[in-house]
């Protein structure tokens, strides 16, 4: 029996292999990983997703640098120099780049610091807060330099699609991705399109 079934499976694989699996990369920049949690929230549909895509760089694979990809999902805005580098790496390697969630779309919560002076923020947190004794502002060369202001990612690179929400629901992410994978124009209607 086993010997008979082997070639069948092999044949199936060939059929699937004809339709090249797409490569998908994800990253969280100045975000909270809430959008990645929402991606996991597609639950058992993750099995269907991995049938159709291979994960490249992503917290799910722990691959550190993005290779040539078809789709890139970016969560979070731009708050430091490293964010800029990662975003540019994604842009240059992903055919389709998608901003996922409020922070990527409009800066979100991290951007609410934009009306504060960064230097004063650092001073207050590390030097002058009431319970700080002998504090100093971290300056290890490995730490990425914070930017003066937080920016949405479309202000840095060209973005192909946006999925708003804080976070967008698993259903919204699934609808968007399956529309894209099936070759339809991705569309979020009521109630999947929301900003909070």
């Amino acid at each position, binding site marked *: 029996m086993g010997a008979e079934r082997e070639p069948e499976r092999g044949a199936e694989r060939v059929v699937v292999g004809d339709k090249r699996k797409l490569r998908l990369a994800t990253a969280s920049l100045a975000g909270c990983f809430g959008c990645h949690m929402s991606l996991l929230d597609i639950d058992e549909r993750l099995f269907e997703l991995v049938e159709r895509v291979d994960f490249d760089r992503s917290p799910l694979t722990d691959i550190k640098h993005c290779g040539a990809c078809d789709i890139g999902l970016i969560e979070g805005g731009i708050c430091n120099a490293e964010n800029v580098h990662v975003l540019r790496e994604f842009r240059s390697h992903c055919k389709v780049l998608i901003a996922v969630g409020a922070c990527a779309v*409009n*800066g979100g919560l991290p951007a609410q610091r934009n*009306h504060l002076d960064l230097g004063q923020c650092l001073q207050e947190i590390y030097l002058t807060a009431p319970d700080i004794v002998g504090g100093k502002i971290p300056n290890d060369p490995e730490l990425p330099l914070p930017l003066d202001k937080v920016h949405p990612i*479309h202000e840095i690179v060209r973005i192909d699609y946006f999925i708003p929400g*804080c976070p967008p629901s698993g259903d919204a992410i699934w609808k968007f991705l399956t529309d894209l994978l099936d070759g339809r124009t991705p569309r979020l209607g009521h109630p999947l399109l929301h*900003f909070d």
Partner: protein
Amino acid sequence: MTQPSILLDGLPVPFVDGQTIMDAAMAADIFIPHLCHHPEFKPQGSCKLCTVKANGRYVSACTLPARDGMEVENNSPDLNDKRRTLLQMLFVEGNHFCPSCEKSGNCMLQALAYELEMLSPHFDQFYPNRAVDASHPEVLLDFNRCILCELCVRASRDVDRKSVFSLSGRGIDKHLIVNAESGRLADTDFSWADKAAHVCPVGVILKKRSGFAVPIGKRRYDVEPIGMQVERLAARSADEES
């Protein structure tokens, strides 16, 4: 004699003399996107969201009187594209970070963005930094969300007879001010019972100690998109709903 009518997206919509295109549409339960318009107030046509094409010309539906036989284009990709751009400009000019706003789910600006499928702000964010006014015992003012629709100005002046609010400055510097020497709402005779407290389409005029009372999923525009709530668009604040 038959009643005069306009042809709205090819559909005959009757009107009575003196009604605008907006009046006729709303009476027929047809949605024309709008922000500065309120059925109980004299229209001023400043937000331009209600721009329609009447006999081939771009006009504000809320101010143009309907005329018999007028052909009006409303729900078309061309007009909705322009409306979406207007919304995007309003979003980047203020601080419309929805997740932290008490009006979220009941906000007309947000609901229109959903209706017109605005997925991104497109333009660069302004990130304004206007001080909030928490001086009043009942009401909080967050000026960072003001879209300059002047509904509170009109309500306070024409209905409440208090003239608590006004717009000041020109162009990009135009902003909402409070009519008190100190500029603080606490130093006016404004109260939550005022009409002006219940007309804000966005999250500027907020009742204190009542935010986030309705869970996500049950708020006004979670339940039904704004385009299907034409008859109820006069009610604005959350306590008018319940």
